[in-house]
């Protein structure tokens, strides 16, 4: 898909409070940011700062109490058709009664004909390195492979914007590194626009074109950092570079301030 280079997602003055009345806890104070087409933006912030609430609001799963979300020019009310979400809990997000292929096909069922669905499923599973595993059940796979299935499901849907909520937080370090690189590769090949929430500072710098640092709850944007690292990233070389260390230190200071 070739989107014109421009703004894919515009979030302006977004607020979210749980419940109503003057004492209702505020999760998101006042958040504005943009994601350009083809960009990978990470949102990072201290635990409990409202990152996930922010993502759920952008996804339309929660209604904002103030402000607005605009996805390629259209104001989002409710759940947009053009989004796909990858959740942290892959084991809970995949349906155990469906096969791996059935899970990837699931959101396409009402949208595409059978032949095209099959082709998309095969392509998406191939992209995440699970070609030939479509007949298995999700619970027969390891955690890392299950999360690959979730990613394949989101890719097969071909969303304008892919939202990822701490997608690698439940994985061991090695698997996490593998999936980070997989995400970068898939994204380079398909120009997918991605907004990813994480609490892992290094991960946010490693993956991003830009990092959005949120304050403690109620969340506001403390700072936006452009990540000027080479597009080709490498778990060892990139993470050892002076620029990476400088950026991660700056993000860490902001997160812990």
């Amino acid at each position, binding site marked *: 898909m070739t989107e014109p280079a421009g703004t894919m997602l515009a979030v302006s003055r977004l607020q979210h409070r749980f419940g109503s009345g003057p004492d209702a806890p505020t999760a998101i104070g006042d958040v504005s940011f943009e994601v350009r087409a083809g960009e990978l933006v990470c949102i990072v912030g201290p635990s409990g700062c409202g990152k996930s609430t922010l993502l*759920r609001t952008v*996804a*339309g*799963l929660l209604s904002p109490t103030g402000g607005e979300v605009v996805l390629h020019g259209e104001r989002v009310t409710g*759940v*947009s*058709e053009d*989004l*796909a*979400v990858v*959740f942290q*809990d892959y084991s*809970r*997000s995949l*349906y*155990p*009664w469906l096969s791996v292929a059935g899970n990837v096909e*699931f*959101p396409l*069922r*009402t949208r595409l004909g059978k032949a095209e669905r099959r082709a998309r499923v095969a392509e998406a599973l191939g992209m995440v390195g699970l070609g030939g595993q479509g007949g298995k*059940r999700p*619970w*027969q796979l390891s955690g890392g492979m299950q999360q690959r299935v979730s990613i394949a499901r989101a890719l097969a*849907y071909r969303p304008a914007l892919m*939202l990822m909520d701490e997608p690698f937080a439940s994985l061991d370090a090695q698997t996490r590194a593998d999936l980070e690189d997989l995400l970068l590769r898939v994204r380079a090949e398909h120009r997918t626009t991605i907004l990813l929430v994480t609490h892992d500072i290094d991960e946010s710098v490693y993956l991003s074109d830009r990092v959005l640092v949120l304050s403690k709850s109620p969340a506001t944007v403390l700072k936006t950092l452009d990540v000027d690292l080479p597009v080709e990233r490498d778990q060892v070389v990139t993470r050892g570079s002076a620029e990476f260390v400088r950026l991660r230190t700056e993000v860490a200071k902001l997160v812990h301030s």
Partner: protein
Amino acid sequence: MLRRVVRGVIGFAGFLLVWELFSRSGVVREEFLPPPTTVFARLAVLLTEPPFVADVVATVLAWLIAVVIASAIAVPLGLLLGSVPSVAAASRALVEFLRPIPSVALIPLVIVLLGVGPETKITLAVYASLWPLLFNTIYAMSEIDPVQVDTARAFGLSRSRILWTVQLPHAAPFVMTGVRISASIALILVISTELLAGGSGGLGQVIFDAGAGGGRMDIVLSATLVAGVIGFLGNAALEKVQRRWLGWDDQIDAGR
């Protein structure tokens, strides 16, 4: 698997042997507790007699109809009550009151209302077997993982589509367990009603007629045995369906 079958057979054979020895020991009169050899011989004769076979069919048919009706009422109702919290709260008091009433206590009332035809035993069996099915279905709906629903919502599925493609498959194993519990309760109610109400045939009536006055215990035990086999086969069939179609449920539990 084979070992389990062999052990089951050994256990069963042991039970029959103890029964045989006890009956023939003279502790009780043999007419009152006939040994299994006598009972099986009687059963072999009974199964060739059309009236007895008709009674078996009457019981099985009433039982099947009751289970189907109970499922047709309880499952949709459970889905509704389970997915609309305000409706669930409104109905809870009534349900909590009705549920503990032993259904057998309602037999005289239903006989007065409906007579002694098959509809009486079916009605009572439906009433009694409704509850476990209803509760299992409501529980399944309330217990669904919100991430499963959110995933479907995030992909833009409508509420009704989520009900069919996420909530129903999720609830299916719980519902199936409910059907199995309900089926065993329905069989008890069908036979109890036949026994107490009479009139509409069935194994319960065979047992009552043969047992009146301490008469033909070989027939009583034959009919009882048939009732047990019906219940066993019914449960085995449902278990097989559950394993074949809903096997994923066992698998994930084992994997956790």
